[in-house]
């Protein structure tokens, strides 16, 4: 058995970067999403504008000095603009931000995300998580949202205990009924494959499997039944140039390990 050519984080970053288009604005979280966006800029989307919630527009992330948070100088390096935080989120509410690009969380079959609390009592939770941060806003307000996450059974649950960030809520048109007129979680990119939501029920649907991954593997790591696209595609494995560009961005392997 040979060693895999890439780590799970590298797979996620490459598959994530392929989702991004040129001439768009991308509201990216730190860690793998930011890496993936920078990879897209280097590879196929040179006019992609990064927006970071700390109040940062179009920074030039320095390889080897990747930001740890959305509110620090490493994330702001050579930015073209540094608006206030509220102003930055309002760009999303107004419709200026094409794609929200965020990292993992507990996610359910309708794409709802929980980063707040596990347990029945919000005020005395079994496990208290850090909280929404900007995730709720990104998922509520961007034109489309791509979630990047490790695919693990403990993350993919039938129904989250607490909806921190609204996917399709109870499915159907319940998201729109709640007043979320714009945006949607369009894509979930995991370490196993690419997913979207079926147009009617808004249930998680497998669109493509990554190299070497089976439908059974997906079922085994998912706590609910996953719908299958009419034709489940196979993704192209990470190419050499993708991996080498990516590794040049994070030579310390801070997020790629």
């Amino acid at each position, binding site marked *: 058995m040979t060693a895999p050519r890439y780590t799970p984080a590298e797979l996620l970053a490459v598959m994530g970067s392929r989702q991004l288009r040129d001439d768009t604005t991308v509201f990216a979280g730190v860690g793998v999403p930011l890496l993936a966006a920078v990879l897209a800029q280097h590879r196929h989307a040179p006019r992609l504008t990064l927006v970071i919630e700390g109040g940062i527009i179009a920074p030039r992330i320095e390889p080897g000095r990747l930001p740890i948070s959305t509110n620090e100088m490493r994330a702001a390096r050579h930015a073209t603009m540094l608006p*206030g935080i509220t102003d930055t989120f309002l760009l999303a509410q107004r419709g200026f931000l094409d794609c929200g690009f965020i990292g993992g969380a507990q996610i359910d079959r309708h794409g709802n995300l929980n980063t707040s609390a596990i347990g029945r009592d919000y005020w005395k939770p079994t496990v208290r998580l850090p909280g929404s941060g900007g995730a709720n806003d990104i998922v509520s307000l961007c034109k489309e949202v791509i979630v990047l996450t490790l695919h693990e059974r403990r993350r993919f649950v039938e129904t989250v205990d607490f909806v921190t960030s609204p996917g399709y809520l109870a499915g159907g048109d319940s998201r729109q009924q709640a007043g979320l007129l714009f945006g949607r979680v369009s894509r979930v990119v995991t370490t196993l494959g690419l997913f979207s939501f079926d147009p009617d029920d808004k249930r998680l649907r497998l669109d493509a499997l990554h190299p070497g991954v089976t439908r059974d593997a997906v079922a085994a790591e998912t706590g609910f039944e996953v719908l299958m696209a009419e034709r489940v595609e196979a993704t192209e494995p990470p190419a050499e140039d993708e991996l080498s560009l990516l590794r040049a961005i994070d030579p310390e392997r801070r997020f790629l390990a």
Partner: protein
Amino acid sequence: MAGAAPWDFREARRRLETKPKSSGEKLSSVEDAALRVRDGDTVAAGGCLFSRTPMALVREILRQRRRRLTLVRNLMCTEGELMMVAGAVEKVVTAWMSIGLPWGVSKIMREHVESGRVPLEEWSHLALGLRFHAAAMGVPFLPTLTMLGSDLMGVGGTQTLRCPYTGETLALVPALFPDVALLHVHRADRFGNCQIDGYPHMDADIARAASTVLVTAEEIIPEAEVRRHPDRTAIPGFMVDAVAHAPFGSFPHECYGLYEADFDHFGEYVAAIDASGSRAVGDYLDRFVYGPATHAEYLERFGRERLARQAGRARELVG
């Protein structure tokens, strides 16, 4: 807050009306500035996460053993943990609390919140920003599309409204008028006019929202210099109650362009917690908060070289 709801714009305005809006002298020591915080106050801290946190003021408030505070900050970091372990806060209002990705979920936060000792009232980052913005504007709420449909709607009591212009459902987030704002800025003059470099975070709104505004500044500059660059001023002097000179006043957090956050220090702090839990934070408080009598003594614990290293790293990043 004397019993008024955090969104009561009438009461908040009355408090401002009784305050002199002077362009006079505001220069103070960090110690005297912090004396304006009273037990039970709702305190909003500027900056965000480990950026431009008013750490010198936070440490002095802990030294003065304030109690029953409600701490409000969009992304809370070590300042929130210190306040929890010191027993200074009875509640926190935030969108997120931990230190940063590499250090995982805050064990101190988990311990205090899961046990019910310190309730964590969660809002989305934008919603909390809009609460400050509403207060800065002097109105009781602002409409938004964020948080709709999520379980965050039920946490802080956000209301919905059928828009009279369009018929759509909107969330109305209530204003948040803190008793005290704690801010750290790059430059101020002795009359309290404040200038900030780099990302402004929410400091300008927080200053307008609060009844009392306490500021530390990396540098005290002559008024004439403020008047040479009036378009750099973020907070006017008449809003400010006290301004104290505190170089490295955010340390070990960062101040844009001047010094990077001390990630090594965070690492040691978290390693100690991993080893011995909140007792490690108690030791940390003794060493870095209660021990040094002044901000200057605090900085001596790190030494000039360490501070110069962090300053050099900042220069590399903004150069």
